[in-house]
């Protein structure tokens, strides 16, 4: 039986939306479903040739940030095509559209799905909860499509199968004049405050003489550098980038700690960090107990080599 999967194509996150094909692959196998994209006319050209069908909203009143109208579009698409699954990228706007659409369809919604398995023919959805400290397996009840949102970069679509794409207009009843209007849009500035950075490369006592060299690794990862107090005390970093009880509390998605032991006062500054990588000569350093990955050895060697590796790029 061929399944039908709808992917919402967010113009503010085109690439992330297309990656959701991989989530669909995990659900039904790469050839087990027909892929439908929902897009606003004139947006997301990259989807052409990758999805089977593009349902195109042509009503100019529907804007990419207008969740109320977009939820109506998702509903209309489903009423017409009866999807098995509806996948929405957890972008700023995807997160607002999905709950409203789920409400309209009276179906459950699992947010920020981090993993998908199939077990005995059933699809298991895994998501993080409690600030990443727990992973919950979520089951949906009732009929209706399996509806999820997925954070960017959760699934990577490696094999891009070329398809011939049918483009069909989607007619949606009940669209209203938007109640939300965009006044201004400015490209985001790189966060100056370590609290706002998604990636932090943090240095401590173990590598303090080389602290300035962390910048290049941070840059290669699009993040910022931060420090433990040991480095700040030594006058090698400013106080405003100190993480911890007497510094800042940070919640990056990725925290790379180089030469930091992980005293409780330091760790108190880490809240809801998704992924922690620790480079330390001592595998018993307390921080290693919180790490997803520990690089046991010299911190600067790790920094140099990883930076080079990142600059080289590729699949690995």
């Amino acid at each position, binding site marked *: 039986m061929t399944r039908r999967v709808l992917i919402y194509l967010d113009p503010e996150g085109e690439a992330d939306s297309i990656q959701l094909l991989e989530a669909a692959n995990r659900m039904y196998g790469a050839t087990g479903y027909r892929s439908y994209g929902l897009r606003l006319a004139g947006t997301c050209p990259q989807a052409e040739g990758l999805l089977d069908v593009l349902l195109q909203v042509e009503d100019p009143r529907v804007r990419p940030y207008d969740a109320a109208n977009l939820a109506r579009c998702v509903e209309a698409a489903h009423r017409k095509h009866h999807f098995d699954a509806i996948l929405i990228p957890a972008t*700023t706007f995807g997160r607002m559209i999905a709950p409203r659409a789920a409400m309209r369809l009276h179906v459950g919604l699992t947010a920020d799905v981090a993993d998908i398995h199939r077990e005995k023919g059933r699809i298991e959805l895994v998501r993080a*909860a409690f600030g990443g400290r727990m992973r919950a*397996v979520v089951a949906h009840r009732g009929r209706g499509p399996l509806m999820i949102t997925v954070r960017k970069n959760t699934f990577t679509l490696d094999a891009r199968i070329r398809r011939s794409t049918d483009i069909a207009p989607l007619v949606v009843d009940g669209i209203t004049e938007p109640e939300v209007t965009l006044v201004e849009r400015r490209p985001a500035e790189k966060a100056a405050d370590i609290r706002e950075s998604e990636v932090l490369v943090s240095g401590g006592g173990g590598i303090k003489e080389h602290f300035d060299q962390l910048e290049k690794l941070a840059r290669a990862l699009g993040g910022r550098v931060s420090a433990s107090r040991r480095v700040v005390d030594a006058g090698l970093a400013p106080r405003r980038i100190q993480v911890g009880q007497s510094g800042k509390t940070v919640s990056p998605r990725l925290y790379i700690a180089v030469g930091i032991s992980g005293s409780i006062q330091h760790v108190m500054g880490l809240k809801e960090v998704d992924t922690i990588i620790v480079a330390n000569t001592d595998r018993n350093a307390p921080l290693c107990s919180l790490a997803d990955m520990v690089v046991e050895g010299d911190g600067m060697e790790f920094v140099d080599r990883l930076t080079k590796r990142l600059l080289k790029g590729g699949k690995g």
Partner: protein
Amino acid sequence: MRIVCLAKLVPDVDNFQYDHERSALIRENVRLLLNPADATAVAIALKLKADSRAGSVHTVTLGPRSAMPHLEDLLRRGVDRATLISDPAYAGSDTHVTSHILAAFLSRCGFDVIFAGTHTLDGGTGHVGPQVAEILGIPHMAGISHMDPESLSEGRAQVRVESEEASYTFALQLPAVLGFAYAPEPKLPFIRYEALKRDLSGRVEVIDNQALGLAPEQVGVLGSLTRVRKIHVKGFRSPNTRFVRPDDEGIERVYRFLREKGFVR
């Protein structure tokens, strides 16, 4: 201007106790705290009130009775009215049901604007704000980092939303649900010593399902459309910590890990 704030009490993530043998959360004695983003929303509301831009601030909480001391504190901080929606029948409600319960109350309590936090510390789905807005048929915006207080008096809200890609300014027609992102400022005002001594027992209005009249099969586990089947805990001696060395092989593994996690394209 009547502001209603959705305010949830969440378990303190840092002070979690976990029973490793039984793989279960220890729920007894779990400390509750006001969800940080909700606290930001209430703080903004109270600031509007202090600046005479809002007439009253009313918090609405769906949760257990143990939320009571926190809600009394909100009254002590200057909130005019606090409602606790609590009923054993609501236990196990997912976000879908939660939104229906809240909306059932909101549609009768009266408001000019609804404030909420964008995310909670526990579930963190961010569903409740938009779903409440959907049920009530009003606009919603999440991730608000700043709101222009002047705009409120004109029957609209002009807000700024910060995302990784861009900084947006939107205008929303009121009434609307405004979801604020957590910010260190403004903070909730201090509780004054005199206010601490004030006896507030009974001042928090408690509402149960009898008052809201939702059908039993619409609420709690029965009404929920999603259900958590299993929970795994990570961190605190997570058994799956991987150890590598900073040699070619180790670096390759780190690189692949970063790719898997999407930190590298």
